[in-house]
C-alpha cells in the first residue's frame, strides 16, 4: 500500500534468552520468518511496562543480529543497557515471556556490491549492531576492521564470537581501563589520510558520529552512521525524532530518524544544526 514501514510487522515475540553480559543484557527473541526482512541497522520498537504501566511509548532498540537455527527458528538479538524505567523492565523479563514488538523499522546500512575496506566504529553498546553487519560485509569479501570505544572498560560490548567476524579489533577507553587510553575517534584521522578505509560504518553517541563526519568531510570516504534521537512512535507519525539533513539539491529538511534513519549519510547530516531550527525557510 505504501513504501513507508514496508515489511514492518506488529506481533508478539517470545523471549528465548535473557542473560547479563557485563553492564548489558543480551536478549534473544523468537521472530520466525521475520528474520528474512531484517537488515543490519534496522531497529525494533518494544512495548514496555506491562498492561497497567504508566509508560505509554515503545522503546526503540537497534537489532544486534538475526539468525536462523533448527531448534529456535528465526531469532533476533538485542543488547540492552538497563538505564531507564523501560529498559530496566525489559531486562527483567524472563524466558518464555511474550513481548509486543514492531519490527523491522528504519533504514539499513548500505552494503557495497564489490569488496571494500570497511571500518566499523562503535561507542558503548552502539557496537551491538556492528557485529551482525561485520558478518554480512565479510560474506561480501570486505576487509572489516573494528574500533570500539567507551568511557570505561565495563561499557565496552565485544562478544567473543563477534571477534571472529572482523579482521582486527581495537578498543579505546577514556580511563584506560581496557585497551588503549583515549577516544575511539583518534586513530580514524590517520586511517582516512592513509587511504586505508573506503567506508566507515558507525553507531554510538551523537558526539562520536559528528566527530567521525568531521574527519571524513572533504574526503572520498563514505560515512554511514546510525543516529540516535528521542522518538515517541518509531513508525514516522509523531515527528519528534527529526534531524536537519541536506538533500541532493542542497536544501535542508528535518528528516525523521525512524523513517529516513537510523542509518544516514554522515556527510548530509547538519550536525551543527542539531537542536536548532535552520534559519532560512525551506
Amino acid at each position, binding site marked *: *500500500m*505504501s*513504501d*513507508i*514501514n*514496508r515489511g*514492518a510487522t*506488529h506481533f508478539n515475540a517470545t523471549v528465548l534468552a535473557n542473560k547479563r553480559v557485563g553492564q548489558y543484557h543480551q536478549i534473544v527473541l523468537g521472530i520466525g520468518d521475520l528474520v528474512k526482512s531484517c537488515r543490519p541497522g534496522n531497529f525494533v520498537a518494544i*512495548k514496555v511496562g506491562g498492561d497497567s504501566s*504508566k*509508560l*505509554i*511509548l*515503545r522503546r526503540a532498540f537497534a537489532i544486534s543480529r538475526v539468525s536462523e537455527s533448527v531448534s529456535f527458528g528465526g531469532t533476533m538479538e538485542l543488547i540492552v543497557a538497563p538505564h531507564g524505567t523501560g529498559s530496566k523492565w525489559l531486562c527483567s523479563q524472563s524466558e518464555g515471556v511474550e513481548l*509486543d514488538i*514492531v519490527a523491522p523499522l528504519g533504514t539499513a546500512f548500505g552494503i557495497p556490491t564489490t569488496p571494500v575496506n570497511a571500518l566499523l566504529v562503535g561507542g558503548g553498546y552502539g557496537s551491538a549492531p556492528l557485529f551482525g553487519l561485520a558478518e554480512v560485509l565479510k560474506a561480501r569479501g570486505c576487509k572489516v576492521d573494528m574500533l570500539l570505544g567507551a568511557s570505561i572498560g565495563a561499557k565496552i560490548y565485544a562478544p567473543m564470537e563477534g571477534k571472529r567476524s572482523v579482521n582486527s579489533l581495537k578498543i579505546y577507553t577514556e580511563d584506560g581501563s581496557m585497551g588503549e587510553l583515549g577516544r575511539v575517534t583518534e586513530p580514524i584521522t590517520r586511517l582516512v589520510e592513509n587511504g586505508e578505509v573506503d567506508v566507515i560504518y558507525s553507531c554510538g553517541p551523537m558526539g562520536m558520529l559528528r566527530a567521525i563526519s568531521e574527519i571524513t568531510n572533504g574526503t572520498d570516504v563514505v560515512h554511514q552512521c546510525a543516529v540516535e*534521537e*528521542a*522518538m*515517541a*512512535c518509531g*513508525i*514516522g*507519525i*509523531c*515527528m*519528534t*525524532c*527529526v*534531524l536537519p539533513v541536506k538533500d541532493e539539491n542542497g536544501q535542508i529538511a*528535518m528528516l525523521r530518524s525512524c*523513517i529516513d534513519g537510523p542509518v544516514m549519510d554522515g556527510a548530509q547530516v547538519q550536525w551543527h544544526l*542539531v*537542536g*536548532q*531550527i*535552520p534559519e532560512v*525557510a*525551506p
Partner: protein
Amino acid sequence: MSNFDFSTTLGNAFFNTPIFTASGCASSGKELAQFFPLNEIGAVVTKSVMNKPRYGRPTPRMAETPSGMLNSIGLQGPGIDAFLAKDVPWLVEQKSRVIVSIAGETVEEYATLARKVRSVAGISALEVNISCPNVENRGLVFACDPEASRRVIDGVRKTIGGEIPIIAKLSPDVTNLPAIAQGVVEAGADCLALINTVLGMVINLDSMRPHLGGKTGGLSGPAIKPVAVRAIYQVHSALPQVPILGMGGVASGRDALELILAGASGVSVGTASFGNPHAVIDIQSELRELLITKGFPSLKSAIGYAHRQEEV
C-alpha cells in the same frame, strides 16, 4: 449484530464508523497503512498543514510523562500546495475518507488555506486548528480568545461556502470553553473538535532547564482523558445540537465510549497510535462490540447518553 448502525455524521458529512485518526498523530496516513487498511476506519484526519513549508520547533521535541507525553513539534510540514498535490490524492486512491486539518498564523492565512482546500476533490470535512499550543507566541493561540476564534472561522466560512463542514478545533486551556464554542458556532463552524493538547512543561534534572527545545509542549495521552470528557460534556450540555469530534487520551474502546456518552459524535485516536500502530482499528472494533453489548441499536443512540434525565 449485523443490524447495528455504526455510522455517524459531522455536519453534512457521513462516515461509516465514528473512529478517526487525530490530526498530528497519523501524518498523512502512509505510515499507518502498513498496519491496517485506511478505508476501514471513519476517516483519516491529516496533520495540520500551513500555507508554507515549515521546519517546526527545535529538538528535543518529546518528553514522556506519567500516562502521557509532551510534544513540541511546532507544525512541521510540507505546506498546503505540496500536501494537496501529493498526500490527498494518495489517500483518495486508498478510498480513505479524508478530513484535512489547517493551521495559520493570521486570519488571512486560514482563508487562503480554505480556498486551496476547496479546489481539491475528495475531502470530506475541514478541521480548522485554532488551538495548536506549539507556537512562539501564546497570544497567537486563536482558540484562547473568543473574538480571534470567531474571526478565523468567519473568514474560513466565507471562503469555503457550504460545500464541506467546518470543524473548529478548540483548546481546553481556557476559562469558559462553552462561550468560545458558542462564538465559533455563530461564526459558522458546523462541528467542534475537542480537545487539543494541554499546555505543559518538563524540567530536565540534569540541565535543570526546560527539557523541550520549545520549552513548553502539548500534553496528550491517557493523562488528559478526564479533561476531554469534561470539555465534551460541558460543550454538549451548552450546545446539544452541535456535533463534536472528541479526542484526548483515548486508548481503548471503553475510553471512546466515555467520550461518546459525554456527547461526541465521533472519536479521534491520537497518541495511542504511537504506542500501538493498530490502536485506531483495535479501538474501533472494541467500541463496536461494547455498544452492542450495552444494548445500543446504533452509535447515534449512544451520543450524549450520559446527559439523559434521571429515570423516575
